[in-house]
């Protein structure tokens, strides 16, 4: 397979504390502001300084969602970065590195690599630039290599630091120093078949966690309580800063148990409440999840997966927690589990989740992962136009006893949903209970009542199934008529779509079902899909093909072909393409 040259790929790598990821994001920003499609893939270890961080920025005039195993250039801030990344440089590609401190020669000996040593430290000193501008300096040089207009970077700098003139000046200077140095000392260049257009409509560049945070803001969350845990923390970090402008209450309590129970308390009082965590924290929330279910208190929990078991790999991605969230907590109760696959869906389904939690008074788990949560993508969608109306279901702020009778928190209704009132509402005493209870909310062990209440709660499930079908519980991508099929969920969406494009270039037609609702499970849709295929391939970022298990449980269909990756890293396009090629019959 020959690499499709309609994108560029650049890795920036070095120790934590050097602004590596930030540098990658700057570059992505420069490209996205100029109308290119960008994806920034990143890996970083669980430490604060040192180690090896890298970001791979892929950019193209066409949509691109995933990274590539080889790149046009590596920018290396230390020797380890060279060691780890040098082999990814395409023949003829460029290695830029900090020549003040590193010798690259041993690594590129006999390799077809253009070398661009830059004495970063010296340049910074000479130009009175602080260390933190080193990444921007390297990007100035990069734009020169690409023969892209340096103004792309200037524009990004102005945008990013808007209002802080000194910082803008400093960074523009750094960018220019880098560009000039490259121009002077290097004949090398990177040839790409496209050029960005500085006047193009800027694209939105956003991560899944940012999209979820915006979804929470747009979706009217008023109470957010979370204990930090990678890779869910960025939502907390984002919202904690936005709380003042949005009148949102954002709390970091003593632990995850408190986080979810505060949110449940707030929701009971009438707030729109949300929390987020990763697997370890979700484990601790398990008991309270059942309380929310039993007391029919709406709650949205974002679960950002990382590689387990246990603490596992704190900063690496995985899709290992699907079954866990589907079945967490004792007893039986309906829940929504929704898995967005990209930033658009992250934004959209956060709002959906908030509505569904309140309409059905059930827990809603939004399951994402480190890759979707912390990596960035451009999108053509304007989120501010993708807002959906807030639906709070049967929630009232007054209660007319004459008209409606005595208020009963758990009134048995045809659809299983009982009216809620804002706590403090005149004439409505709200008795909620995590024990089994009467319609009024008094604890009861009466066996008939137990059945009635279980039936009431489960009656919702039928309505939840119908409701789910309003929101694309599955999406089919690719060639509708194809008989070679992939199935997957969550953040692998992007790479699967990209790999299918590569297959298409080979003349192999495929289609791909992305499952978004995991509970209720869209059994009919999935069944129809798998039965329309000659071959179905399950693709997951885990070891045990959990979706395939679900498919069999709900449709009886056994998916024989399975592609799994479970080293904490996301598939790259080419790798997945090759894995698919090996499997496709």
């Amino acid at each position, binding site marked *: 397979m020959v690499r499709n040259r309609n994108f560029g790929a650049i890795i920036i790598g070095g120790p934590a504390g050097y602004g590596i990821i930030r540098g990658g994001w700057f570059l992505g920003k420069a490209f996205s502001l100029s109308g290119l499609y960008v994806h920034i893939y990143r890996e970083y270890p669980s430490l604060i300084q040192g180690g090896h961080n890298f970001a791979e920025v892929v950019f193209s005039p066409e949509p691109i969602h995933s990274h590539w195993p080889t790149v046009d250039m590596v920018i290396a801030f230390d020797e380890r970065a060279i060691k780890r990344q040098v082999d990814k440089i395409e023949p003829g590609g460029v290695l830029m590195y900090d020549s003040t401190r590193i010798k690259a020669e041993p690594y590129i000996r006999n390799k077809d690599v253009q070398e661009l040593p830059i004495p970063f430290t010296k340049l910074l000193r000479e130009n009175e630039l602080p260390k933190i501008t080193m990444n921007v300096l390297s990007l100035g040089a990069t734009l020169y290599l690409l023969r892209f207009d340096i103004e792309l970077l200037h524009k990004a700098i102005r945008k990013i630091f808007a209002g802080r003139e000194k910082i803008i000046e400093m960074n523009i200077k750094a960018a220019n120093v880098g560009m000039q140095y490259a121009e002077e000392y290097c004949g090398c260049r990177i040839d790409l078949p496209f050029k960005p257009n500085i006047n193009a409509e800027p694209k939105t560049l956003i991560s899944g966690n940012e999209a979820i945070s915006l979804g929470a803001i*747009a979706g009217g969350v*008023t109470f957010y309580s979370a204990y930090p845990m990678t890779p869910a923390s960025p939502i907390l970090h984002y919202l904690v800063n936005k709380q003042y402008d949005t*009148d949102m209450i954002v709390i970091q309590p003593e632990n995850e148990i408190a986080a979810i129970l*505060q949110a449940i*308390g707030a929701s009971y009082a*009438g707030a729109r409440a949300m929390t987020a965590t990763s697997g370890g924290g979700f484990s601790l929330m398990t*008991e309270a999840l059942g309380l929310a279910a039993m007391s029919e208190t709406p709650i949205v929990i974002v679960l950002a997966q990382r590689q387990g078991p246990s603490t596992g790999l704190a900063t690496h991605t995985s899709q290992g927690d699907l079954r866990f969230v589907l079945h967490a907590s004792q007893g039986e109760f309906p829940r929504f589990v929704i898995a967005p696959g990209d930033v658009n869906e992250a934004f959209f389904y956060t709002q959906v989740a908030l509505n569904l939690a309140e309409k059905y008074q059930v827990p809603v788990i939004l399951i994402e992962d480190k890759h979707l949560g912390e990596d960035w993508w451009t999108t053509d969608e304007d989120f501010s136009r993708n807002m959906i109306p807030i639906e709070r279901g049967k929630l009232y702020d007054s209660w007319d006893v004459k008209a409606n009778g005595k208020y009963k928190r758990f009134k048995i209704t045809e659809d299983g949903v009982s009216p809620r009132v804002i706590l403090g509402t005149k004439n409505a005493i709200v008795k909620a*209970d995590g*024990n089994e209870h009467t319609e009024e909310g008094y604890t009861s062990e009466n066996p008939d009542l137990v059945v009635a209440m279980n039936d009431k709660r489960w009656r919702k499930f039928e309505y939840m199934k119908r409701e789910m079908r309003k929101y694309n519980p599955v999406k089919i991508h690719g060639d509708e008529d194809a008989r070679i099929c992939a199935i997957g969920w969550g953040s692998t969406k992007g790479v699967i779509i990209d790999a299918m494009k590569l297959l298409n270039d080979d003349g192999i037609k495929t289609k791909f079902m992305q499952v978004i609702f995991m509970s209720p499970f869209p059994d009919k849709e999935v069944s129809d899909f798998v039965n329309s295929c000659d071959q179905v391939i399950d693709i997951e970022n885990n070891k045990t093909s959990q979706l395939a298990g679900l498919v069999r449980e709900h449709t009886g269909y056994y998916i024989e072909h399975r592609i799994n990756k479970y080293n904490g890293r996301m598939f790259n396009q080419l790798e997945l393409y090759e894995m698919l090629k090996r499997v496709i019959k």
Partner: protein
Amino acid sequence: MTQLDIKMLDTPAENTWCPGCGNFGILTALKRAIIELASELNIDIEKFVVVTGIGCHGKIHGYINVNSFHVIHGRVLPVATGIKLANPELKVIGHAGDGDAYAIGVAHLIHAAKKNIPVTYIVHNNHRFSLTTGQVTPTTEKGEKTRTTPRGNPEEPINPLRLALASGATFVARGFAGDVQHLAWLIKEAVKHNGFSFIDVLQPCVVWDALHTYKFWRERIYKLEDTDYDPTDYFSAIRKVEEMGDKVPIGIFYKVNKPTFIDMYPQLKRMVPVRDVKPRDISDIINKEFR
């Protein structure tokens, strides 16, 4: 406002506490306190919320006709916190057991005190996991035989008041289930206190604890209010809480005013109504930060 009568707070639920249980006294005190507070502060009964744990104490949820949430074992405080922060105009009163509060849920006590969350926390301290048939708790005396200490509890009990003080609680008190009037007064003071208010209530369990009977306490108890004790000094308080022998003080050990958690957060101080859930325009954010 309609005339308030304590009968209003009755419920149809069957009371399943043992005859003679100290919980009855606490229930009566709570009802009285709420009725009196409602009229003194001129607020609706609907503005009171009770949060209860799991245990005999937790059944109080069923026996009082105010808003209430019977949660899970040990988690009264985070739920109470969420309610209060979501709607600061509510008066939130938590009821926990000693197992609930000092065993499984002790972390929340420390942090609610630290944060000075303005809720009231009433612990039904009967020295046993009673509903689960009488196991040892953190407040069981050394030497007491319980279901899980068949040869006598080898451990020293914790001192809940000491712990609350050390955690920064701004209102620390002890009540006695056998003195309803005093307890009702304490609850009122606690609810009126602007900050985290904590009352450990000595509650006889007539089934599992043969030591701490009504008589036992009555022979030992005296009221701090009847002495010249000054409850505003931390170091006096930290000494006073050690008095637990022939003489057992009840009343307010410590009470100071400090900024509450609500005072600390501008958006809470503005008392944003919880019902104010509306979509927020994000186009500005998108344009500034993401495009």
